[in-house]
């Protein structure tokens, strides 16, 4: 950080606003960093607009404080226990710290209260006060993915009752990850790729942001479909189109450097159509041999699921979707 800037940042928290003109921070700190004139007066400070999107340094996740207590106990609502690190971990998949913090020139990183006034009745109306600045950041995302969120979701209750969220996030948490994700790819050498998410995240302990980069909050926190439900486990369909071969493999190839394609890309045997039996098998089972499920007892006996799926059994659990009766044609 070359420039030392005591900010009177005229922040207006805006969603979806693009990058914009910001004061030149080149060279030594001068009046012109914050003011449009060399002779600012108390009456007419001639401040430049808030230096939004001025995060200059990439901050590591480890620097983030664990939990912050926001708000004062005196208000209508109790204070908020803000799991800062959890949010920072999510932000690391997307915009990083600058998703919320938009200014870090003067010190390692600025808190909201450094620029935003703690009193609502104030002369400078260009930027929201502290309460509003915080609420706009939180509500901006929370209201989008769940319209039923209320004040009490984050704020402690009147008699010190814990907030609804205090038990932990309802969304994608470390305990609520998809077990495996199946992709259908355009690859000729094997269309089906089954990614064992649970193994990678839990057993190998890889950080979320290691693979999930450049994601928006809504990619996981979709409206009306909380993560961890069917949506998260459902096959993703064709992989996101328009990506190059390198882009599509980026997350995997950083570790799986020398693996052959067939390590992940599998396909059903030629001419194999399990749906003829009245059950269309999930793509997850593409890599299996018939005997893996049907075993030595043959096709008349119920298939065995237990070797892979603990506590599951046919016909209570089905490895796919039942389809309308066995096909008489073909």
């Amino acid at each position, binding site marked *: 950080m070359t420039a030392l800037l005591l900010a009177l940042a005229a922040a*207006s928290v*805006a*969603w*979806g*606003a*693009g990058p*914009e003109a910001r004061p030149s921070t080149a060279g030594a700190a001068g009046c012109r960093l914050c003011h449009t004139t060399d002779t600012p007066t108390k009456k007419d400070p001639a401040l430049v*607009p808030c230096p939004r999107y001025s995060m200059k340094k990439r901050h590591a996740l480890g620097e983030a404080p664990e939990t912050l207590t926001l708000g004062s106990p005196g208000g*209508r609502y109790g204070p908020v226990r803000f799991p800062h690190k959890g949010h920072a971990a999510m932000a690391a998949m997307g915009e990083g710290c600058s998703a919320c913090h938009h200014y870090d020139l003067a010190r390692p990183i600025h808190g909201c209260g450094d620029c935003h006034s703690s009193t*609502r*009745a104030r002369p400078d*109306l*260009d930027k*929201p*006060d502290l*309460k*509003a600045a915080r*609420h*706009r950041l939180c*509500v901006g995302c929370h*209201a*989008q993915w769940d*319209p*039923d969120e*209320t*004040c*009490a979701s984050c704020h402690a209750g009147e008699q010190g009752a814990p907030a609804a969220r205090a038990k932990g996030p309802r969304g994608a948490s470390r305990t609520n990850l998809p077990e495996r994700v199946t992709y259908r790819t355009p690859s000729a050498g094997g269309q089906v790729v089954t990614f064992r998410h649970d193994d990678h995240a839990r057993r190998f302990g890889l950080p979320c942001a290691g693979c999930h980069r450049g994601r928006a909050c809504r990619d996981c926190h979709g409206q009306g479909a909380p993560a961890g439900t069917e949506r998260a486990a459902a096959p993703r369909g064709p992989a996101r189109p328009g990506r190059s071969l390198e882009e599509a493999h980026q997350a995997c190839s950083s570790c799986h450097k020398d693996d052959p394609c067939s390590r992940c890309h599998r396909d059903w045997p030629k001419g194999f159509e399990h749906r003829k039996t009245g059950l269309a098998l999930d793509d997850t089972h593409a890599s299996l041999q018939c005997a893996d499920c049907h075993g030595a007892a043959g096709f008349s006996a119920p298939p065995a699921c237990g070797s892979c799926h603990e506590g599951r059994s046919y016909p209570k659990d089905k490895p796919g979707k039942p389809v309308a009766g066995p096909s008489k044609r073909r």
Partner: protein
Amino acid sequence: MSPSSGRSSRRDFLKTALAAGAAGLAPRPASAAPKPALSPDRMGVLVDTTVCIGCRNCEWACKTAHALPTEPLKSYEDKSVFEKFRRPDDKALTVVNRFDAPKDAGTPHRWAKIQCMHCDRPACVSACIVGALSKSEDGSVLWSTRRCIGCRYCMVACPFQVPAFEYHKALEPSIRKCDFCHDRRRSGGLPACVESCPVEALTYGPREELIRVARARTKRYPQRYASHIYGESEVGGTSWLYLAGGDFADLRLPRLGPDPAPGVSESIQHGIFAYFIPPASLYGLLGLLMWISKNRPERGPHGPGE
């Protein structure tokens, strides 16, 4: 004496009476009009509908501040009230309504709070025949219990349909509308709604400053805001100003021209009595006609024909 002397004395009487009437009546129409000289420091509120989250805390705060009966704050989380468009009434001086957001807004809804706009040239003040409504120097349009006779002309006159009448009260019903928290502000506080807004969708400040702030926002985030500031010029300007992400008509804010609402009616009414010249001329003309016709019978019936 000659009839001419009697005629002249009656004319003198009429003249004196007219002059006295003119002296007594002429200043009154001028004082009944809203004062055009408004304080440049008068206050206002900027409502940013792109920021509002529809929490309805302002509704609760307003009722609490005005000692109106209200359910506990928790009940305001009920979103079903948004299914119907609501107007402020005698039991709720401000209400928040929900609308569909413009297509690329990122959220499915927009919310807009409505209350008295506190016009710079208020139609209600102009329409009130007893001066029960007044525009105060700090921006608020106030209603006085002492003077109101319950004619409800203000309700008809208001271009925003805001004043409400306590129909359920048989005795001493009041006109109820937002008073811009006049008493709270006089003792240095903020309007209750502004104070309670969690996201500061309501910004309180001098009207001129708010227009500057609003213009800076629309200029800085042109994709987010429509460039117009609703209330800056509507019906001659209002103390409450609105910013929106699309058409203001989508938030059911009425399309209004820049002319003050009382302009037409006042120009007619005040024109009739302007400086008392029109009535004086009319009575003068009538007097003249009487004088001419008075002379005619003297010569007419006793003319050459008889």
